[in-house]
């Protein structure tokens, strides 16, 4: 694996509330979202899912986006991934335009890999075939080399002896880890995680969180993480972006100054509770609005 990069502990401590973005040349995967608007349907009568959304996802950090269910977080993720078009605004990845004027929809590609809410390991492929899929379809590695790399990747994630199993035969927690290994096989610039642990029980979830942080420490890949679990957001995030309810735009951006690597003892720390209170306050207001709006629609 890659040599251990700059210890993240000092870096996050050095950051202040709205840190100027100075991309580390060794790191990559900085996303700049500027004035993004997404309207479903016609401009005049359609549903405004995202409105004037501007924020940055710094390279080599975990950015967690929180907001009430259905607020448009996933719309934003889909725009970055290239599944949906945007109505106006721009999204840049490391200075290159992903989507913007004249190019409403980005092309999906292995530099931005999504880990889906319900998991999307191909059930008809074995674990190793799933993990080796990316480099093989891209034509970067032949079957033998791809399998070798996949094996190493799985071993690193502590998932030995599962190679010839099908996804349906392993636990849902393991499936999420395999899916992240499948993504990392492609050396992505950004991992886009769309509430990946939503369906898991809280015990499995805590194991997943620690595994994700460990993976992050090893790879220092930029992570864009969507959730509505506030504890999860603060525990994982270097930066937490709290969204307003529909239309979605950042309401508050927190920089979480809890040093990495974090473990579960952090959850009871005073500093953690303070961040949590701050977030709860911001989110609750939006949740009430979302609830009221929902009542009107139905």
């Amino acid at each position, binding site marked *: 694996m890659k040599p251990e990069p700059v210890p993240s502990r000092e870096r996050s401590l050095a950051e202040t509330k709205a840190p100027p973005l100075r991309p580390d040349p060794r790191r990559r995967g900085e996303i700049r979202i500027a004035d993004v608007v997404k309207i479903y349907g016609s401009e005049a009568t359609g549903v405004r899912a995202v409105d004037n959304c501007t924020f940055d996802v710094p390279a080599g950090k975990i950015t967690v986006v929180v907001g009430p269910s259905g607020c448009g977080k996933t719309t934003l993720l889909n725009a970055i991934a290239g599944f949906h078009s945007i109505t106006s605004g721009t999204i840049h990845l490391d200075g290159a335009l992903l989507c913007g004027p004249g190019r409403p929809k980005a092309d999906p590609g292995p530099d*931005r890999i999504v880990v889906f809410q319900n998991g999307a390991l191909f059930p008809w492929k074995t674990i190793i075939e799933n993990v080796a899929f990316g480099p093989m379809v891209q034509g970067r590695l032949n079957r033998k080399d791809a399998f070798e790399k996949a094996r190493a990747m799985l071993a690193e994630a502590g998932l030995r002896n599962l190679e010839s199993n*099908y996804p349906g035969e392993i636990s849902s927690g393991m499936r999420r880890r395999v899916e992240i290994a499948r993504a990392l096989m492609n050396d992505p610039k950004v991992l886009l995680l769309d509430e990946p642990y939503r369906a898991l029980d809280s015990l499995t979830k805590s194991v997943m969180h620690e595994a994700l942080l460990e993976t992050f420490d090893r790879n220092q890949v930029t992570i864009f993480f969507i959730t509505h679990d506030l504890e999860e957001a603060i525990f994982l995030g270097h930066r937490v972006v709290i969204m307003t309810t529909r239309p979605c735009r950042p309401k508050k951006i927190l920089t979480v100054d809890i040093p990495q690597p974090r473990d579960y003892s952090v959850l009871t720390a005073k500093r953690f509770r303070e961040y949590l209170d701050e977030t709860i306050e911001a989110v609750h207001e939006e949740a009430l609005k979302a609830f009221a709006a929902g009542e009107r629609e139905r």
Partner: protein
Amino acid sequence: MKDPESTFAVAEVDGGLTEVPTAGLADGADSTSRVEVAAYRLGQWLSSPRPYLMLLGFGLFFAFWYLTVEVWKLPRFSQMPGPTTIISEWLSRDPTYGLSIYSPEYYQHIWVSWRRVSIAFVLATATGVPLGLFLGWSQLFKEYVFPVFELLRPIPPLAWVPLAIIMFQGSETPIVFLTFLASFYATTLNTMLGVESIDVSFIRAAYCLGARRRQVFWHVVVPGAMPFIFTGLQISVGVAWFSLVAGEMVSGQYGLGYLINTSYTMVQYPTMVIGMITLGIVGYATSAAVRILGNYLMQWRTRELAMGGEK
């Protein structure tokens, strides 16, 4: 794992008990041989109530038939041949109406029908699966083709008989054509539904991982639709048999449908019932063969279901 019992997890599959070797798989090695697995499954099956309930079901059916027809001779049933008549005729070396398991003609009928169904089924699969895949995959293609398809589909094979005779020469081709039709609709429709049922996340994930459209088709669309395709094929082989009989009743010199129809006109009722039962057995066997092939080709699904069908 020395004890073979401990290497198996028992789970419900399709309402029945099926065992899968799990520990062996988790170790990444198939330590248990296929024969052992088969023997174990057979043992489990025999020690479960299923085979006895099945025998009981058959027993009740034949008892009902025997009592109503041969013992009580109820009105309406008295003209029917009873089970003892049928079985003695069927197994006779010197059958009264000239057809039993000892007459080569009997196998000729089965063979001819089986051949027609096979040809029709292969043709229907070879055309229906690709058509269904494209219908599900391309919205544009669907808009052209699907309305026509839906217009033709409700027309029953029997209504096609005159046209089939005009269109095709001889007696063989029209029968194969009629048999093909119903199969083709079942296969195409199920394949299309199969493609449409694929979770969009799988397709998105494939694009994310750098797959091109053609690769998504082969790696995601085709295997993803496979469970529906095989359901379609099972239905298809079933409907092939009954549209075959429709065709054979109209033309031809051999085949089980022809046998049933001529025995009726020649008042050879036992032979007629022998034809019907044979049709049932052969039809069931082909359908089971398709199911077994499907399970073999979709190991992932068999194992997933065996684990409790957790998604």
